[in-house]
């Protein structure tokens, strides 16, 4: 079981690293979106400090949404997805490996860049740290839920916009707890609750979404 996970993971990572442009694109998208807001709302540090976590979270969310279409699109076009569906290994495991690879290529860079954005918004040391921690737990959930949307809209025209319409409502709880954690930390409130809830959502997503993604794929490749 784990051998197939490793094979598909290695395959996806080699493919992803051979097309660095796609990976960097989502990263730059997040940075650009996050840098737009100060231009829009003005440079007062106090205002930016309070809005910072929310803006960075929305930018990260949109960036990971952007890269979802490539998750299955390429394999669907050249027939390798079919071979995966009819392989003797459970499809949920193959799909799980693909989503983990997608997170490593699209989600993790967002987490690594977020301290930089936190500085841009004047979030000092520990607030920035908390922001990075929430993104670290939150972005895998976004990838897992987003993959369900990507599988459902496989091969449809206007897939990008359609995926966001399907998946953004599901992102709301993650967005709420992710961005609220930093504000409450700044206000000195306790934030264990936020992290335990985010953790619970991550575990639920890890267990339930692979099955949903696999059945969505089976429906879409008909």
């Amino acid at each position, binding site marked *: 079981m784990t051998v197939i996970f490793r094979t598909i993971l290695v395959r996806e990572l080699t493919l992803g690293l051979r097309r660095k442009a796609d990976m960097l694109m989502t990263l730059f998208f997040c940075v650009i979106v996050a840098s737009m807001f100060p231009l829009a709302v003005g440079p007062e540090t106090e205002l930016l400090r309070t809005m910072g976590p929310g803006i960075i979270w929305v930018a990260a969310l949109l960036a990971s949404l952007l890269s979802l279409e490539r998750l299955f699109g390429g394999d669907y076009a050249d027939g390798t997805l079919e071979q995966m569906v009819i392989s003797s290994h459970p499809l949920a495991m193959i799909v799980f490996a693909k989503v983990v690879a997608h997170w490593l290529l699209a989600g993790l860079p967002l987490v690594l860049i977020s301290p930089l954005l936190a500085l841009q918004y004047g979030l000092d040391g520990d607030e920035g740290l908390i922001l990075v921690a929430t993104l670290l737990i939150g972005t895998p959930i976004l990838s897992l839920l987003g993959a369900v949307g990507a599988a459902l809209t496989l091969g*449809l025209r206007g897939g990008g916009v359609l995926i966001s*319409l*399907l998946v953004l*409502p599901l992102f709301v*709880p993650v967005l*709420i707890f992710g961005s609220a954690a930093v504000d409450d930390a700044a206000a000195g409130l306790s934030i264990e609750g936020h992290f335990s809830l985010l953790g619970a*959502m991550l575990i639920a997503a890890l267990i339930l979404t692979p099955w949903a993604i696999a059945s969505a794929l089976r*429906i*879409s490749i008909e």
Partner: protein
Amino acid sequence: MNINWFKYASPASFYPLAGKMIPWFAIPAGILAFIGLVMGLFVLPPDFKQGESYRIIFIHVPAAWMSMVIYLAMAFWAIVGMVWNSRLSAMMAIALAPTGAMFCFLALWTGALWGKPTWGTYWVWDARLTTQLILLFMYLGYMALHAAIEDPRRAARASGLLAIVGAFNVPIIYFSVQWWNTLHQGASITPNKSEMAASMASVMLIMAVAAWLYAIAVALKRVRCEILDRERHASWVAELVTKTGQVHG
């Protein structure tokens, strides 16, 4: 009454049954709605604090309930459709969606108009209105996905799966929004305590049941259209059309 459900699982035998059932839901819905409207708008005295604007609650709350109930019903039919691979239940899920979306929008609209006189602004980021807004996006997502796929079977199964995933997330969204915002003074109708006068509560219930019956009647009517649309090649549809010349009822 243990009707053998699988006999009615085939669209051909469900079509006439649905036709007969529609009046049984439509007429009581009309009567109840009329009673509720007359009592709600004219009989009940104005509220001492909110004056007349509290009357909007008689359609706002039922619409909000219905939008939630219909989404869960859609998920239920999607599950049934997927487990028994029955096309009819998938059609039922699709037939419910537009009515659910309508109730969702109306809940938002009436919520805003009710909010203006009571809270002073049309849109208030209050927990239940925000959940209602997100639910509207989920309805739109459901219908957009269903419309984007040509093949009717794949469309039904894909949107069905989305409804199931969505229904699983509705409580999570509700509680996270509820936690996020404690502005709203708690649901005025909570199972244990009811701040509202008994008469108001009864009118609300009448309107809720009327809305519920209305939704079923419309869903049955729309599912008949779906059946005719999807089964147009089946022999029974051709007979039906030629036999009755102009099909009615």
